[in-house]
């Protein structure tokens, strides 16, 4: 087991760790978008970012394990499902907008006691 590389080293060297870092950063950015931004649309984008961050990690591991096609195949399916999910999500956002004429997520706080 070698010592973990630093961030820039990892990116520079183009190994597995570089991919992991990129995925990790994308995931954090997505998460922070969901937590900090108030617009549904931006939050939705954040969710998509997180999904894709995970996908990057999936593909990176797939390549690292001898380039087996399972991960790539799996990824294609995920893209398909994600497209459907995006359609559903956007439809929900449209409906929520019709309900209160705003896409501010904090205004849609009716699911309380």
């Amino acid at each position, binding site marked *: 087991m070698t010592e973990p590389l630093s961030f820039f080293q990892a990116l520079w060297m183009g190994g597995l760790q570089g991919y992991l870092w990129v995925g990790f950063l994308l995931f954090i950015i997505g*998460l922070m978008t*969901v*937590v*900090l931004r*108030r617009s549904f649309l931006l*939050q939705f984008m954040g969710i998509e970012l997180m999904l894709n961050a995970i996908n990057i990690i999936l593909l990176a591991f797939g390549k690292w394990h001898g380039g087996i096609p399972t991960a790539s195949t799996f990824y294609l399916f995920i893209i398909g499902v994600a497209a459907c999910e995006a359609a559903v999500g956007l439809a929900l956002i449209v409906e929520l907008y019709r309900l209160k004429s705003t896409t501010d*997520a*904090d205004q*849609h*706080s*009716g*699911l*309380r*006691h």
Partner: protein
Amino acid sequence: MNSAILIPLIPFLGFALNGLVGHRLSRALSNFIACSAIASSFALSLVWFIRVLENPQHRFDLMIGQWIAVDYLQIPFAFVIDALSSIMLLVITGIGLLIHIYSIGYMHHEKATARFFAYLNLFVFFMTLLVMSSSLPLLFVGWEGVGLCSYLLIGYYFETEEAPRAGLKAFLYNRVGDVGVLLGMMILFLVFKTLTISDLLQQVSQRGVENYFGWLTFATLMLFLGCTGKSAQIPLYLWLPDAMAGPTPVSALIHAATMVTSGIYLVCRLAPLFVLAPHTLHLIAWIGVLTALFAATMALFQKDIKKVLAYSTVSQLGFMFLGLGVTGFSAGFFHVFTHAWFKALLFLGAGSVIVALHHEQDIFKMGGLRKKLPITFYTMLIGALCLMGFPGTSGFASKDEILYLTYLHSPMLWSLGVLAAVCTAFYTTRFMVLVFAGQPRDLNIFDHAHESPWWMTIPLILLSLGALVAVMFGWPEAFGGHNRIASWLQSAIHYAQSIQPEVHELHIGLAWKLAIITTVASLLSAGLAWKLYAEGLEWEQKFEKKCLHTYRILREKYYVDQAVQTLIINPFFRLGQVFWKLGDVILIDGIGVNLPGAVTHVMGDLGSHLQTGRLRNYTLLSLLGLLGLLVLLWSGRT
């Protein structure tokens, strides 16, 4: 042979028809169903009466099936018809039939008559069940059933305020008595291991008289408590005057002729048992005479025509119990028989007056009605003469027999009984004079009076004939008669013939003397009442001014109702309120049910404030949770 089962069954069918679909039938049809049910029941009773008459010693046991069979608790569903029950059946269905016919006229202006007739039929069903049953539990079914019908019929005018209240009162007073009957039955079962009346009385004949306070005395006392409830004796008589809130035919059938005499029937039925408990008999005699006297004085100054008759009924029931208490069972029962006729007659006559005056019951507003209501007057006159014991009437025969036997037992009791008879003569004359004689006191009412339709007058005429003929059954032997009813009842009452009652020697001279004393005193008091009230109300008003306290005490019935209200009902009510407020509201509802609910509610409320409904907060919290989890895992690894 088994046609006897139809006697209760047909009225029950009538009840089912009228009760279930009566409101859809036409009035005439529902009347017809009710009356024909009782009529066929009456015809059967007549057949059975004649069959018993041919052989009065014989008892017909009619086994229908097993009702309860647990170990040695064997209760058959069986009927017994002997002299006692056949006479009762005749009275119930005979007078019941006349009252049904009368009700067609009386209830003509009411709306829901199908309901009324259904209840009446149900009453006849339960009453015949009561007198025919061969075991105490089956008798108790009838006993409770007639109580239920009494409740339903008293409260027939349920839109008014006092009728449902009076019904409830009657029901509750009877419950107190019924506890006594149940206790008595249980003790008898413990002692004799059977509740079938014939087995019970067979075993009774093997026991000696109980001169101490033992099980038998206790059992009979408890049974007698039930009788005081059902037959309106001290201390449970208070419901009967209030029961007059029901329709008048109901008062005549249930609260004068039949149901209230079921207590006397029970004692007669178990006579050998009561003979073994002289203490109980002594108490019965005293309660009887005191009730007779007090109720008679209460009737003296009543204003309501039905109230006069109600107190009179209580008083006459007291006479019956006096007869039973001095072991004159057949004499007491003969009074049941005669009283049923003339008191039903008086009540129906009063009902006829009430209808004629458009539901006016105040005798102070009547007067001079003799010409307007001739049939009602003459029939009621017969009833009144019977009630006051005019020589030669049926009331005279039965009352005199009781008083004669009482004198043999104790002159003290006899003198009280005579006093009650004197009061009876006074109030009877008073209300008859106030209603029918003199000048009309309220012309408005008087002018609109009219004789009742023949639906009502024909039963009156038949009942007055019955009241006159009833004397044939038991004219006392001292006056050259033949007391048929006593010889019929001999075997039914003294059952296993091993216990003979005290043999009353017949002192003809003494009987004449006593009868003359009673009659003269009664007639004097009746004459006095006639003289005082012939002019109208002046004497009573003068008396009221002069003896305000006496008058008020009598008018307010010795304030017994008020005393019971303050001493028993109100404390119980308060106790109930305490239990309600403390036990139910605070303990069970509060601490038991609402407190856990409230705690849960408050905790939920507090917890619900964590919910903001904002997606971002939830996401952040999940993130923090995830981080916390990771930290835990991390720290766990090293």
